[in-house]
Protein backbone atom coordinates (compact mmCIF):
# COMPACT_ATOMS: atom_id res chain seq x y z
CA UNK A 1 0.00 0.00 0.00
CA UNK A 2 1.26 3.41 -0.91
CA UNK A 3 1.03 6.29 1.46
CA UNK A 4 -1.94 8.57 0.61
CA UNK A 5 -0.82 11.66 -1.25
CA UNK A 6 -0.73 14.77 0.86
CA UNK A 7 -3.91 16.83 0.31
CA UNK A 8 -2.17 20.15 -0.14
CA UNK A 9 1.49 20.12 -1.05
CA UNK A 10 3.40 23.33 -1.72
CA UNK A 11 6.86 22.79 -3.19
CA UNK A 12 9.56 25.40 -3.65
CA UNK A 13 7.07 28.25 -4.09
CA UNK A 14 8.87 31.40 -5.15
CA UNK A 15 7.30 34.79 -5.78
CA UNK A 16 9.31 37.39 -7.62
CA UNK A 17 8.70 40.89 -8.87
CA UNK A 18 9.76 42.19 -12.25
CA UNK A 19 12.52 44.18 -10.57
CA UNK A 20 14.28 40.88 -9.74
CA UNK A 21 13.35 41.08 -6.08
CA UNK A 22 12.21 37.74 -4.69
CA UNK A 23 9.67 38.18 -1.89
CA UNK A 24 9.01 34.49 -1.28
CA UNK A 25 12.10 32.30 -1.63
CA UNK A 26 11.16 28.69 -1.76
CA UNK A 27 8.31 27.77 0.56
CA UNK A 28 7.56 24.09 1.22
CA UNK A 29 4.42 23.27 3.12
CA UNK A 30 1.93 20.44 3.20
CA UNK A 31 -1.35 19.82 4.96
CA UNK A 32 -3.98 17.12 5.22
CA UNK A 33 -7.73 17.55 4.92
CA UNK A 34 -9.15 18.87 8.16
CA UNK A 35 -5.83 20.30 9.25
CA UNK A 36 -5.32 23.93 10.21
CA UNK A 37 -1.93 25.37 9.45
CA UNK A 38 -1.01 28.79 10.78
CA UNK A 39 1.41 30.78 8.66
CA UNK A 40 3.03 33.25 11.03
CA UNK A 41 5.38 36.16 10.57
CA UNK A 42 5.83 39.91 10.65
CA UNK A 43 4.42 42.15 7.91
CA UNK A 44 6.42 41.80 4.74
CA UNK A 45 7.63 38.26 5.40
CA UNK A 46 5.70 36.98 2.38
CA UNK A 47 2.89 35.14 4.14
CA UNK A 48 0.06 37.01 2.40
CA UNK A 49 1.77 36.72 -0.99
CA UNK A 50 2.08 32.98 -0.44
CA UNK A 51 -1.68 32.78 0.16
CA UNK A 52 -2.57 34.99 -2.81
CA UNK A 53 -0.33 32.90 -5.06
CA UNK A 54 -2.41 29.80 -4.27
CA UNK A 55 -5.43 31.56 -5.83
CA UNK A 56 -3.48 33.20 -8.64
CA UNK A 57 -4.36 36.59 -7.18
CA UNK A 58 -0.87 38.06 -6.95
CA UNK A 59 -0.65 41.83 -7.45
CA UNK A 60 0.36 43.08 -10.91
CA UNK A 61 4.07 42.63 -11.52
CA UNK A 62 4.45 39.64 -9.22
CA UNK A 63 4.74 36.11 -10.51
CA UNK A 64 5.04 32.73 -8.84
CA UNK A 65 7.07 29.66 -9.71
CA UNK A 66 7.18 26.26 -8.07
CA UNK A 67 4.22 24.07 -7.36
CA UNK A 68 1.18 23.82 -5.13
CA UNK A 69 -1.00 20.76 -5.65
CA UNK A 70 -4.43 20.65 -4.00
CA UNK A 71 -5.96 17.17 -4.16
CA UNK A 72 -4.40 16.51 -7.55
CA UNK A 73 -4.92 20.00 -8.99
CA UNK A 74 -1.93 22.21 -9.67
CA UNK A 75 -2.58 25.81 -8.55
CA UNK A 76 0.62 27.58 -9.59
CA UNK A 77 1.30 28.68 -13.14
CA UNK A 78 -2.26 28.04 -14.36
CA UNK A 79 -3.90 30.30 -16.93
CA UNK A 80 -6.68 32.69 -15.96
CA UNK A 81 -9.39 30.39 -17.31
CA UNK A 82 -8.29 27.46 -15.14
CA UNK A 83 -7.80 29.71 -12.13
CA UNK A 84 -11.36 31.03 -12.40
CA UNK A 85 -12.66 27.49 -12.06
CA UNK A 86 -10.49 26.93 -8.98
CA UNK A 87 -11.20 30.20 -7.19
CA UNK A 88 -14.37 30.10 -5.15
CA UNK A 89 -14.94 26.41 -5.92
CA UNK A 90 -11.76 24.56 -4.90
CA UNK A 91 -10.26 27.31 -2.78
CA UNK A 92 -11.97 30.13 -0.90
CA UNK A 93 -10.43 33.08 0.85
CA UNK A 94 -11.38 35.30 3.77
CA UNK A 95 -9.67 38.68 3.84
CA UNK A 96 -8.60 40.93 6.66
CA UNK A 97 -11.01 43.86 6.42
CA UNK A 98 -14.57 42.67 5.82
CA UNK A 99 -15.84 46.23 5.24
CA UNK A 100 -13.63 47.03 2.28
CA UNK A 101 -13.66 43.44 1.03
CA UNK A 102 -17.42 43.48 0.45
CA UNK A 103 -19.00 45.37 -2.43
CA UNK A 104 -20.56 48.46 -0.81
CA UNK A 105 -23.48 48.73 -3.25
CA UNK A 106 -24.72 45.12 -3.32
CA UNK A 107 -26.85 43.31 -0.71
CA UNK A 108 -24.74 40.78 1.20
CA UNK A 109 -27.01 37.85 0.28
CA UNK A 110 -26.43 38.54 -3.41
CA UNK A 111 -22.67 38.64 -2.79
CA UNK A 112 -22.82 35.15 -1.30
CA UNK A 113 -25.15 33.86 -4.03
CA UNK A 114 -22.74 35.13 -6.67
CA UNK A 115 -20.32 32.29 -5.92
CA UNK A 116 -23.11 29.83 -6.75
CA UNK A 117 -23.99 31.76 -9.90
CA UNK A 118 -20.40 31.40 -11.06
CA UNK A 119 -19.81 27.77 -10.15
CA UNK A 120 -23.17 25.98 -10.16
CA UNK A 121 -26.24 25.65 -12.34
CA UNK A 122 -28.57 26.44 -9.46
CA UNK A 123 -31.62 28.58 -10.21
CA UNK A 124 -31.77 32.14 -8.99
CA UNK A 125 -34.23 31.31 -6.21
CA UNK A 126 -32.23 28.25 -5.14
CA UNK A 127 -29.09 30.37 -4.96
CA UNK A 128 -30.91 32.89 -2.82
CA UNK A 129 -32.18 30.19 -0.46
CA UNK A 130 -28.71 28.65 -0.23
CA UNK A 131 -27.18 32.04 0.59
CA UNK A 132 -29.60 32.42 3.51
CA UNK A 133 -28.77 28.88 4.69
CA UNK A 134 -25.07 29.69 4.55
CA UNK A 135 -25.65 32.84 6.57
CA UNK A 136 -27.55 30.83 9.16
CA UNK A 137 -24.76 28.25 9.28
CA UNK A 138 -22.20 30.91 10.18
CA UNK A 139 -24.42 32.16 12.97
CA UNK A 140 -26.08 35.21 11.47
CA UNK A 141 -29.45 35.68 13.21
CA UNK A 142 -32.49 36.61 11.12
CA UNK A 143 -30.53 35.67 8.02
CA UNK A 144 -33.35 36.12 5.49
CA UNK A 145 -33.70 39.79 6.41
CA UNK A 146 -29.95 40.30 6.78
CA UNK A 147 -29.37 38.92 3.29
CA UNK A 148 -31.13 41.94 1.81
CA UNK A 149 -29.00 44.41 3.75
CA UNK A 150 -25.94 46.27 2.56
CA UNK A 151 -22.50 45.69 4.14
CA UNK A 152 -22.58 49.05 5.93
CA UNK A 153 -25.76 48.01 7.72
CA UNK A 154 -24.01 45.07 9.42
CA UNK A 155 -21.57 45.03 12.33
CA UNK A 156 -17.91 44.13 11.78
CA UNK A 157 -18.37 40.63 13.14
CA UNK A 158 -21.44 40.03 10.98
CA UNK A 159 -19.57 41.30 7.93
CA UNK A 160 -16.73 38.85 8.57
CA UNK A 161 -19.30 36.06 8.93
CA UNK A 162 -20.64 37.09 5.52
CA UNK A 163 -17.09 36.89 4.13
CA UNK A 164 -16.76 33.40 5.60
CA UNK A 165 -20.07 32.42 3.97
CA UNK A 166 -18.71 33.64 0.65
CA UNK A 167 -15.51 31.64 1.09
CA UNK A 168 -17.46 28.50 2.05
CA UNK A 169 -20.27 28.84 -0.52
CA UNK A 170 -18.45 26.77 -3.14
CA UNK A 171 -17.56 24.00 -0.62
CA UNK A 172 -13.82 24.54 -1.12
CA UNK A 173 -11.10 22.03 -0.23
CA UNK A 174 -8.81 24.84 0.80
CA UNK A 175 -9.87 27.76 2.94
CA UNK A 176 -7.40 30.60 3.27
CA UNK A 177 -7.95 33.18 5.99
CA UNK A 178 -5.62 36.18 5.84
CA UNK A 179 -5.62 37.93 9.23
CA UNK A 180 -9.40 37.40 9.47
CA UNK A 181 -9.70 38.73 13.01
CA UNK A 182 -7.24 41.62 12.94
CA UNK A 183 -9.87 44.23 12.03
CA UNK A 184 -12.40 42.98 14.61
CA UNK A 185 -13.15 43.79 18.23
CA UNK A 186 -11.52 41.45 20.71
CA UNK A 187 -14.80 39.86 21.83
CA UNK A 188 -15.81 39.23 18.23
CA UNK A 189 -12.37 37.78 17.39
CA UNK A 190 -12.94 34.73 19.59
CA UNK A 191 -16.35 34.05 18.00
CA UNK A 192 -14.94 34.27 14.49
CA UNK A 193 -12.05 31.97 15.40
CA UNK A 194 -14.46 29.42 16.86
CA UNK A 195 -16.57 29.62 13.72
CA UNK A 196 -13.58 29.10 11.43
CA UNK A 197 -12.40 26.15 13.51
CA UNK A 198 -15.82 24.55 13.31
CA UNK A 199 -16.46 25.21 9.62
CA UNK A 200 -13.01 24.17 8.43
CA UNK A 201 -13.30 20.52 9.52
CA UNK A 202 -13.43 19.18 5.98
CA UNK A 203 -10.92 21.55 4.46
CA UNK A 204 -7.36 22.56 4.78
CA UNK A 205 -7.45 25.87 6.64
CA UNK A 206 -4.45 28.03 5.93
CA UNK A 207 -4.57 30.69 8.60
CA UNK A 208 -2.34 33.69 8.15
CA UNK A 209 -1.56 35.83 11.14
CA UNK A 210 1.12 37.80 12.92
CA UNK A 211 -0.53 37.07 16.27
CA UNK A 212 1.02 34.18 18.19
CA UNK A 213 -1.88 34.27 20.65
CA UNK A 214 -4.34 33.45 17.87
CA UNK A 215 -2.11 30.62 16.62
CA UNK A 216 -2.50 28.69 19.86
CA UNK A 217 -6.27 28.90 19.59
CA UNK A 218 -6.76 27.74 16.04
CA UNK A 219 -3.85 25.86 14.54
CA UNK A 220 -2.83 22.20 14.46
CA UNK A 221 0.49 23.05 12.93
CA UNK A 222 2.39 26.27 12.61
CA UNK A 223 4.88 27.52 10.02
CA UNK A 224 6.94 30.56 10.92
CA UNK A 225 8.06 32.72 8.00
CA UNK A 226 10.92 35.16 7.94
CA UNK A 227 12.08 37.17 4.92
CA UNK A 228 10.32 34.95 2.40
CA UNK A 229 11.29 31.58 3.91
CA UNK A 230 9.81 29.18 6.38
CA UNK A 231 12.29 29.09 9.25
CA UNK A 232 10.46 26.71 11.54
CA UNK A 233 7.45 24.43 11.30
CA UNK A 234 5.91 21.81 13.54
CA UNK A 235 2.94 20.80 15.71
CA UNK A 236 1.53 23.89 17.35
CA UNK A 237 2.14 22.77 20.95
CA UNK A 238 5.71 21.74 20.26
CA UNK A 239 6.60 25.00 18.52
CA UNK A 240 4.86 27.24 21.04
CA UNK A 241 6.20 25.36 24.09
CA UNK A 242 9.71 24.79 22.82
CA UNK A 243 10.56 27.00 19.86
CA UNK A 244 13.83 25.96 18.23
CA UNK A 245 14.53 28.81 15.83
CA UNK A 246 15.84 31.96 17.57
CA UNK A 247 13.34 34.03 15.55
CA UNK A 248 10.37 31.95 16.73
CA UNK A 249 11.62 32.19 20.29
CA UNK A 250 11.98 35.95 19.99
CA UNK A 251 8.48 36.28 18.48
CA UNK A 252 7.01 34.31 21.38
CA UNK A 253 8.88 36.39 23.94
CA UNK A 254 7.31 39.54 22.48
CA UNK A 255 3.77 38.21 23.10
CA UNK A 256 2.36 39.20 26.49
CA UNK A 257 1.68 36.07 28.54
CA UNK A 258 -0.48 36.31 31.66
CA UNK A 259 1.39 33.35 33.21
CA UNK A 260 4.74 35.00 32.77
CA UNK A 261 4.40 38.70 33.57
CA UNK A 262 7.30 40.85 32.47
CA UNK A 263 8.67 43.71 34.44
CA UNK A 264 8.84 46.90 32.39
CA UNK A 265 8.69 46.80 28.62
CA UNK A 266 7.89 43.75 26.55
CA UNK A 267 10.98 42.37 24.89
CA UNK A 268 11.30 43.34 21.24
CA UNK A 269 13.46 41.88 18.51
CA UNK A 270 16.47 44.11 17.84
CA UNK A 271 17.02 45.36 14.32
CA UNK A 272 14.57 45.28 11.44
CA UNK A 273 13.09 42.91 8.90
CA UNK A 274 15.25 43.08 5.75
CA UNK A 275 13.93 45.71 3.36
CA UNK A 276 12.43 44.64 0.04
CA UNK A 277 15.30 43.87 -2.31
CA UNK A 278 17.89 43.81 0.45
CA UNK A 279 20.16 40.76 0.10
CA UNK A 280 21.49 39.12 3.21
CA UNK A 281 24.22 36.53 2.84
CA UNK A 282 23.41 33.24 4.51
CA UNK A 283 20.67 33.04 7.11
CA UNK A 284 18.33 36.04 6.68
CA UNK A 285 17.89 36.39 10.46
CA UNK A 286 21.67 36.50 11.06
CA UNK A 287 21.98 40.31 11.52
CA UNK A 288 19.37 40.26 14.32
CA UNK A 289 20.33 36.96 15.91
CA UNK A 290 22.21 36.68 19.21
CA UNK A 291 23.33 33.14 18.39
CA UNK A 292 24.78 33.93 14.95
CA UNK A 293 28.28 32.71 14.08
CA UNK A 294 30.38 32.56 10.92
CA UNK A 295 28.63 29.35 10.04
CA UNK A 296 25.42 31.34 9.53
CA UNK A 297 26.97 32.93 6.42
CA UNK A 298 25.88 29.70 4.71
CA UNK A 299 22.07 29.56 4.42
CA UNK A 300 20.63 26.74 6.57
CA UNK A 301 18.04 24.35 5.11
CA UNK A 302 14.80 23.38 6.80
CA UNK A 303 15.79 20.14 8.54
CA UNK A 304 13.36 17.73 10.21
CA UNK A 305 13.92 16.83 13.83
CA UNK A 306 12.53 14.12 16.10
CA UNK A 307 9.54 16.26 17.30
CA UNK A 308 7.83 16.08 13.93
CA UNK A 309 8.89 19.65 13.22
CA UNK A 310 11.61 21.20 11.10
CA UNK A 311 13.91 24.12 11.68
CA UNK A 312 16.23 26.09 9.42
CA UNK A 313 19.01 27.07 11.80
CA UNK A 314 22.62 26.12 12.45
CA UNK A 315 22.28 26.85 16.15
CA UNK A 316 18.70 25.97 17.16
CA UNK A 317 17.56 25.98 20.76
CA UNK A 318 17.95 22.46 22.11
CA UNK A 319 14.77 20.53 22.72
CA UNK A 320 15.49 20.46 26.43
CA UNK A 321 16.20 24.17 26.45
CA UNK A 322 13.29 26.31 27.68
CA UNK A 323 11.99 29.03 25.40
CA UNK A 324 12.80 31.74 27.85
Amino acid sequence: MTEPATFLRIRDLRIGFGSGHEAVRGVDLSAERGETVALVGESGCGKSLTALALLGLLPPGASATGSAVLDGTELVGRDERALRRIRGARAGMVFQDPMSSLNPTTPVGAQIAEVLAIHTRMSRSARRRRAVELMESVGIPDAAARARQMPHQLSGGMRQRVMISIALAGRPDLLIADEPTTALDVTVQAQVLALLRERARDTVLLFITHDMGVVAEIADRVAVMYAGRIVETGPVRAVLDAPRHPYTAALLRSVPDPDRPVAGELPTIPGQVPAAGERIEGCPFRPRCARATDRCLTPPDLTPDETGGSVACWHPHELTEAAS
Partner: protein
Amino acid sequence: MTAVLPRRRLAALPATPRYIAGRIGQALLALFGVVTIVFFALRLSGDPARLLVPEGATAADIARVRDRLGLNDSLWHQYTTFLGDAVHGNLGYSYVQNRPATDLLAERLPYTANLAVAALVLSLLFGVTVGTVTALKRGRWQERVLMPIVLAGQAMPAFWTGLLLVLVFSVGLRWLPSTGYDGPLSLLLPSVTLAALSAAAIARVTRGAMLEQLAQDYVRTARAKGAGTWRLVTRHLARNTAIPVLTVAALELANLLGGAVVTEVIFAWPGLGQLTVQSVAARDFPVVQAIVLLASAVYVVVNLATDLLYGVIDRRVAAGGGTA
Protein backbone atom coordinates in the same frame (compact mmCIF):
# COMPACT_ATOMS: atom_id res chain seq x y z
CA MET B 1 -26.09 79.27 -15.76
CA THR B 2 -25.54 79.13 -12.07
CA ALA B 3 -26.42 75.54 -11.20
CA VAL B 4 -23.36 73.86 -9.76
CA LEU B 5 -23.30 70.09 -9.58
CA PRO B 6 -22.77 68.79 -6.07
CA ARG B 7 -19.61 66.71 -5.80
CA ARG B 8 -20.57 65.04 -2.55
CA ARG B 9 -20.61 61.29 -2.90
CA LEU B 10 -21.53 59.98 0.46
CA ALA B 11 -22.76 63.11 2.16
CA ALA B 12 -26.13 63.18 3.84
CA LEU B 13 -28.67 63.62 1.11
CA PRO B 14 -32.03 62.18 2.11
CA ALA B 15 -34.61 62.33 -0.69
CA THR B 16 -37.46 63.44 1.56
CA PRO B 17 -40.35 65.58 0.24
CA ARG B 18 -38.99 68.46 2.30
CA TYR B 19 -35.56 68.10 0.69
CA ILE B 20 -37.09 68.02 -2.78
CA ALA B 21 -39.29 71.03 -2.04
CA GLY B 22 -36.21 72.90 -0.86
CA ARG B 23 -34.33 72.04 -4.02
CA ILE B 24 -37.26 73.20 -6.19
CA GLY B 25 -37.36 76.47 -4.28
CA GLN B 26 -33.65 76.97 -4.93
CA ALA B 27 -34.23 76.13 -8.58
CA LEU B 28 -36.97 78.75 -8.96
CA LEU B 29 -34.72 81.34 -7.37
CA ALA B 30 -31.91 80.44 -9.78
CA LEU B 31 -34.27 80.72 -12.77
CA PHE B 32 -35.47 84.12 -11.59
CA GLY B 33 -31.88 85.35 -11.32
CA VAL B 34 -30.90 84.06 -14.75
CA VAL B 35 -33.93 85.57 -16.44
CA THR B 36 -33.39 88.95 -14.79
CA ILE B 37 -29.76 89.13 -15.85
CA VAL B 38 -30.61 88.13 -19.40
CA PHE B 39 -33.48 90.61 -19.58
CA PHE B 40 -31.27 93.60 -18.78
CA ALA B 41 -28.21 92.37 -20.64
CA LEU B 42 -30.26 91.99 -23.83
CA ARG B 43 -31.47 95.55 -23.60
CA LEU B 44 -27.88 96.77 -23.47
CA SER B 45 -27.17 94.99 -26.74
CA GLY B 46 -28.87 97.48 -29.02
CA ASP B 47 -32.15 98.46 -30.61
CA PRO B 48 -34.13 95.66 -32.27
CA ALA B 49 -36.30 98.17 -34.14
CA ARG B 50 -33.38 99.20 -36.35
CA LEU B 51 -33.05 95.63 -37.57
CA LEU B 52 -36.77 95.22 -38.22
CA VAL B 53 -37.39 98.22 -40.46
CA PRO B 54 -36.60 98.07 -44.15
CA GLU B 55 -33.54 99.82 -45.54
CA GLY B 56 -33.95 103.56 -45.87
CA ALA B 57 -36.60 103.80 -43.17
CA THR B 58 -36.94 107.15 -41.43
CA ALA B 59 -36.44 107.89 -37.77
CA ALA B 60 -40.21 108.16 -37.46
CA ASP B 61 -40.65 104.63 -38.87
CA ILE B 62 -38.21 103.30 -36.31
CA ALA B 63 -39.97 105.12 -33.49
CA ARG B 64 -43.27 103.61 -34.57
CA VAL B 65 -41.82 100.11 -34.49
CA ARG B 66 -40.29 100.77 -31.07
CA ASP B 67 -43.63 101.94 -29.82
CA ARG B 68 -45.42 98.89 -31.19
CA LEU B 69 -42.92 96.54 -29.48
CA GLY B 70 -43.31 98.43 -26.20
CA LEU B 71 -39.66 99.40 -26.19
CA ASN B 72 -40.45 103.04 -25.41
CA ASP B 73 -41.85 102.13 -22.00
CA SER B 74 -39.58 102.49 -18.99
CA LEU B 75 -37.20 99.58 -18.43
CA TRP B 76 -38.82 98.88 -15.09
CA HIS B 77 -42.27 98.76 -16.66
CA GLN B 78 -41.04 96.40 -19.40
CA TYR B 79 -39.44 94.18 -16.76
CA THR B 80 -42.49 93.90 -14.49
CA THR B 81 -44.77 93.30 -17.48
CA PHE B 82 -42.44 90.55 -18.67
CA LEU B 83 -42.33 88.89 -15.25
CA GLY B 84 -46.12 89.15 -14.83
CA ASP B 85 -46.70 87.54 -18.22
CA ALA B 86 -44.01 84.92 -17.66
CA VAL B 87 -45.71 83.72 -14.49
CA HIS B 88 -48.79 83.05 -16.60
CA GLY B 89 -46.75 81.14 -19.16
CA ASN B 90 -46.69 83.98 -21.68
CA LEU B 91 -43.13 84.70 -22.76
CA GLY B 92 -44.07 87.32 -25.32
CA TYR B 93 -44.27 87.45 -29.09
CA SER B 94 -41.33 87.09 -31.44
CA TYR B 95 -40.50 90.52 -32.89
CA VAL B 96 -39.54 88.90 -36.16
CA GLN B 97 -42.14 86.23 -36.70
CA ASN B 98 -44.96 87.79 -34.69
CA ARG B 99 -45.79 84.44 -33.07
CA PRO B 100 -45.64 83.45 -29.41
CA ALA B 101 -42.05 82.64 -28.37
CA THR B 102 -43.29 79.49 -26.66
CA ASP B 103 -44.73 78.24 -29.98
CA LEU B 104 -41.39 78.74 -31.69
CA LEU B 105 -39.64 76.84 -28.91
CA ALA B 106 -42.16 74.02 -28.94
CA GLU B 107 -41.57 73.68 -32.67
CA ARG B 108 -37.79 73.47 -32.33
CA LEU B 109 -37.46 71.52 -29.10
CA PRO B 110 -38.20 68.02 -30.53
CA TYR B 111 -35.35 68.38 -33.03
CA THR B 112 -32.90 69.47 -30.38
CA ALA B 113 -34.09 66.79 -27.96
CA ASN B 114 -33.66 64.13 -30.66
CA LEU B 115 -30.16 65.31 -31.37
CA ALA B 116 -29.26 65.62 -27.69
CA VAL B 117 -30.48 62.15 -26.76
CA ALA B 118 -28.83 60.55 -29.81
CA ALA B 119 -25.56 62.31 -29.04
CA LEU B 120 -25.74 61.31 -25.37
CA VAL B 121 -26.43 57.66 -26.18
CA LEU B 122 -23.52 57.59 -28.63
CA SER B 123 -21.13 59.30 -26.27
CA LEU B 124 -22.13 57.04 -23.36
CA LEU B 125 -21.64 53.93 -25.49
CA PHE B 126 -18.28 55.08 -26.75
CA GLY B 127 -17.12 56.89 -23.61
CA VAL B 128 -17.99 54.18 -21.10
CA THR B 129 -16.56 51.44 -23.33
CA VAL B 130 -13.31 53.27 -23.99
CA GLY B 131 -12.99 54.39 -20.37
CA THR B 132 -13.52 50.84 -19.11
CA VAL B 133 -11.19 49.20 -21.63
CA THR B 134 -8.38 51.69 -21.07
CA ALA B 135 -8.68 51.22 -17.30
CA LEU B 136 -8.64 47.42 -17.52
CA LYS B 137 -5.83 47.41 -20.07
CA ARG B 138 -3.76 50.07 -18.45
CA GLY B 139 -0.35 50.32 -20.07
CA ARG B 140 -1.21 47.87 -22.84
CA TRP B 141 -1.70 48.48 -26.56
CA GLN B 142 -5.48 48.98 -26.20
CA GLU B 143 -4.84 52.04 -24.07
CA ARG B 144 -2.19 53.40 -26.42
CA VAL B 145 -4.57 53.07 -29.39
CA LEU B 146 -7.74 54.37 -27.75
CA MET B 147 -6.49 57.31 -25.70
CA PRO B 148 -5.23 59.33 -28.69
CA ILE B 149 -8.61 58.83 -30.41
CA VAL B 150 -10.36 60.16 -27.32
CA LEU B 151 -8.01 63.12 -27.12
CA ALA B 152 -8.44 63.88 -30.83
CA GLY B 153 -12.22 63.80 -30.45
CA GLN B 154 -12.02 66.29 -27.65
CA ALA B 155 -9.41 68.51 -29.26
CA MET B 156 -11.25 68.88 -32.55
CA PRO B 157 -13.84 71.68 -32.48
CA ALA B 158 -17.36 70.84 -33.68
CA PHE B 159 -17.09 72.96 -36.83
CA TRP B 160 -14.02 70.98 -37.87
CA THR B 161 -15.33 67.51 -36.97
CA GLY B 162 -18.66 68.34 -38.58
CA LEU B 163 -17.17 69.56 -41.85
CA LEU B 164 -14.83 66.58 -41.97
CA LEU B 165 -17.73 64.16 -41.55
CA VAL B 166 -19.76 65.96 -44.22
CA LEU B 167 -16.79 65.87 -46.57
CA VAL B 168 -16.30 62.14 -46.15
CA PHE B 169 -19.80 60.74 -45.75
CA SER B 170 -21.92 63.22 -47.72
CA VAL B 171 -19.68 64.70 -50.39
CA GLY B 172 -17.27 61.80 -50.82
CA LEU B 173 -19.20 58.61 -50.18
CA ARG B 174 -22.68 60.14 -50.65
CA TRP B 175 -24.01 57.87 -47.91
CA LEU B 176 -25.65 60.44 -45.67
CA PRO B 177 -27.41 63.77 -46.13
CA SER B 178 -25.22 66.74 -45.33
CA THR B 179 -27.74 69.21 -43.94
CA GLY B 180 -31.28 69.64 -42.74
CA TYR B 181 -33.64 67.18 -41.17
CA ASP B 182 -34.69 64.43 -43.52
CA GLY B 183 -35.45 61.25 -41.61
CA PRO B 184 -33.47 59.39 -38.96
CA LEU B 185 -30.37 59.02 -41.16
CA SER B 186 -29.80 62.75 -41.13
CA LEU B 187 -29.48 62.52 -37.34
CA LEU B 188 -26.28 60.53 -37.66
CA LEU B 189 -23.66 63.10 -38.66
CA PRO B 190 -24.70 65.88 -36.27
CA SER B 191 -25.03 63.48 -33.34
CA VAL B 192 -21.62 61.96 -34.03
CA THR B 193 -20.16 65.46 -34.19
CA LEU B 194 -21.67 66.32 -30.82
CA ALA B 195 -20.83 62.96 -29.29
CA ALA B 196 -17.14 63.36 -30.17
CA LEU B 197 -16.95 66.14 -27.59
CA SER B 198 -18.98 64.51 -24.81
CA ALA B 199 -17.51 61.04 -25.29
CA ALA B 200 -14.03 62.24 -24.40
CA ALA B 201 -15.22 63.71 -21.12
CA ILE B 202 -17.22 60.58 -20.28
CA ALA B 203 -14.30 58.31 -21.23
CA ARG B 204 -11.90 60.16 -18.97
CA VAL B 205 -14.26 60.15 -16.00
CA THR B 206 -15.12 56.48 -16.54
CA ARG B 207 -11.44 55.55 -16.74
CA GLY B 208 -10.62 57.47 -13.57
CA ALA B 209 -13.52 55.95 -11.65
CA MET B 210 -12.67 52.45 -12.91
CA LEU B 211 -9.02 52.76 -11.90
CA GLU B 212 -10.07 53.95 -8.45
CA GLN B 213 -12.53 51.08 -8.01
CA LEU B 214 -10.19 48.43 -9.44
CA ALA B 215 -7.83 49.12 -6.55
CA GLN B 216 -10.55 48.37 -3.99
CA ASP B 217 -10.50 45.22 -1.89
CA TYR B 218 -13.97 44.07 -2.99
CA VAL B 219 -12.61 43.61 -6.52
CA ARG B 220 -10.11 41.10 -5.14
CA THR B 221 -12.96 39.36 -3.30
CA ALA B 222 -14.94 39.10 -6.53
CA ARG B 223 -11.92 37.63 -8.29
CA ALA B 224 -11.41 35.20 -5.40
CA LYS B 225 -14.96 33.98 -6.07
CA GLY B 226 -13.95 33.09 -9.62
CA ALA B 227 -15.56 36.09 -11.33
CA GLY B 228 -14.28 36.88 -14.80
CA THR B 229 -13.65 40.33 -16.21
CA TRP B 230 -17.13 40.68 -17.74
CA ARG B 231 -18.86 39.82 -14.47
CA LEU B 232 -16.49 42.07 -12.57
CA VAL B 233 -17.33 45.03 -14.81
CA THR B 234 -21.08 44.49 -15.10
CA ARG B 235 -21.90 43.26 -11.60
CA HIS B 236 -19.40 45.11 -9.45
CA LEU B 237 -17.70 48.03 -11.12
CA ALA B 238 -20.67 49.38 -13.10
CA ARG B 239 -22.69 50.41 -10.08
CA ASN B 240 -19.70 51.63 -8.10
CA THR B 241 -18.49 53.85 -10.93
CA ALA B 242 -21.98 55.03 -11.93
CA ILE B 243 -22.12 58.17 -9.79
CA PRO B 244 -19.25 60.16 -11.34
CA VAL B 245 -20.14 58.92 -14.84
CA LEU B 246 -23.78 59.84 -14.37
CA THR B 247 -22.79 63.26 -13.08
CA VAL B 248 -20.81 64.05 -16.22
CA ALA B 249 -23.44 62.54 -18.50
CA ALA B 250 -26.14 64.68 -16.90
CA LEU B 251 -24.02 67.77 -17.36
CA GLU B 252 -23.52 66.91 -21.02
CA LEU B 253 -27.22 66.24 -21.50
CA ALA B 254 -28.18 69.56 -19.98
CA ASN B 255 -25.71 71.33 -22.25
CA LEU B 256 -26.96 69.50 -25.32
CA LEU B 257 -30.62 70.17 -24.54
CA GLY B 258 -29.93 73.89 -24.39
CA GLY B 259 -29.19 73.64 -28.10
CA ALA B 260 -25.89 72.79 -29.73
CA VAL B 261 -25.34 76.10 -31.47
CA VAL B 262 -22.32 75.37 -33.66
CA THR B 263 -23.35 71.88 -34.69
CA GLU B 264 -26.91 72.92 -35.51
CA VAL B 265 -25.67 75.76 -37.68
CA ILE B 266 -23.24 73.52 -39.60
CA PHE B 267 -25.89 70.92 -40.33
CA ALA B 268 -28.74 73.43 -40.76
CA TRP B 269 -30.50 71.50 -38.02
CA PRO B 270 -33.90 73.07 -37.24
CA GLY B 271 -33.37 73.02 -33.46
CA LEU B 272 -33.00 75.46 -30.61
CA GLY B 273 -29.34 76.18 -31.37
CA GLN B 274 -30.14 77.67 -34.74
CA LEU B 275 -33.09 79.56 -33.29
CA THR B 276 -30.72 81.01 -30.69
CA VAL B 277 -28.33 82.29 -33.34
CA GLN B 278 -31.12 83.77 -35.45
CA SER B 279 -32.82 85.39 -32.47
CA VAL B 280 -29.67 86.92 -31.05
CA ALA B 281 -28.69 88.28 -34.44
CA ALA B 282 -32.14 89.84 -34.90
CA ARG B 283 -32.26 91.07 -31.27
CA ASP B 284 -35.50 89.14 -30.93
CA PHE B 285 -35.60 89.70 -27.14
CA PRO B 286 -38.66 87.58 -26.22
CA VAL B 287 -37.32 84.52 -28.06
CA VAL B 288 -33.82 84.81 -26.57
CA GLN B 289 -35.33 85.19 -23.10
CA ALA B 290 -37.51 82.14 -23.62
CA ILE B 291 -34.57 80.04 -24.81
CA VAL B 292 -32.42 81.02 -21.84
CA LEU B 293 -35.28 80.29 -19.47
CA LEU B 294 -35.79 76.87 -21.02
CA ALA B 295 -32.09 76.00 -20.99
CA SER B 296 -31.73 76.95 -17.33
CA ALA B 297 -34.86 75.03 -16.39
CA VAL B 298 -33.50 71.94 -18.13
CA TYR B 299 -30.21 72.35 -16.29
CA VAL B 300 -31.89 72.59 -12.92
CA VAL B 301 -34.24 69.66 -13.55
CA VAL B 302 -31.45 67.40 -14.84
CA ASN B 303 -29.32 68.23 -11.80
CA LEU B 304 -32.12 67.52 -9.38
CA ALA B 305 -32.91 64.23 -11.11
CA THR B 306 -29.22 63.27 -10.92
CA ASP B 307 -29.09 64.01 -7.21
CA LEU B 308 -32.10 61.83 -6.56
CA LEU B 309 -30.62 59.04 -8.69
CA TYR B 310 -27.49 58.95 -6.48
CA GLY B 311 -29.63 57.55 -3.69
CA VAL B 312 -30.99 54.82 -5.98
CA ILE B 313 -27.50 53.77 -7.11
CA ASP B 314 -25.89 53.80 -3.69
CA ARG B 315 -28.18 53.22 -0.75
CA ARG B 316 -25.61 54.70 1.62
CA VAL B 317 -26.42 58.07 0.02
CA ALA B 318 -30.15 57.64 0.54
CA ALA B 319 -29.62 56.52 4.14
CA GLY B 320 -27.77 59.70 4.94
CA GLY B 321 -24.21 58.41 4.61
CA GLY B 322 -21.84 56.95 7.13
CA THR B 323 -21.52 53.37 8.26
CA ALA B 324 -23.92 51.50 10.48
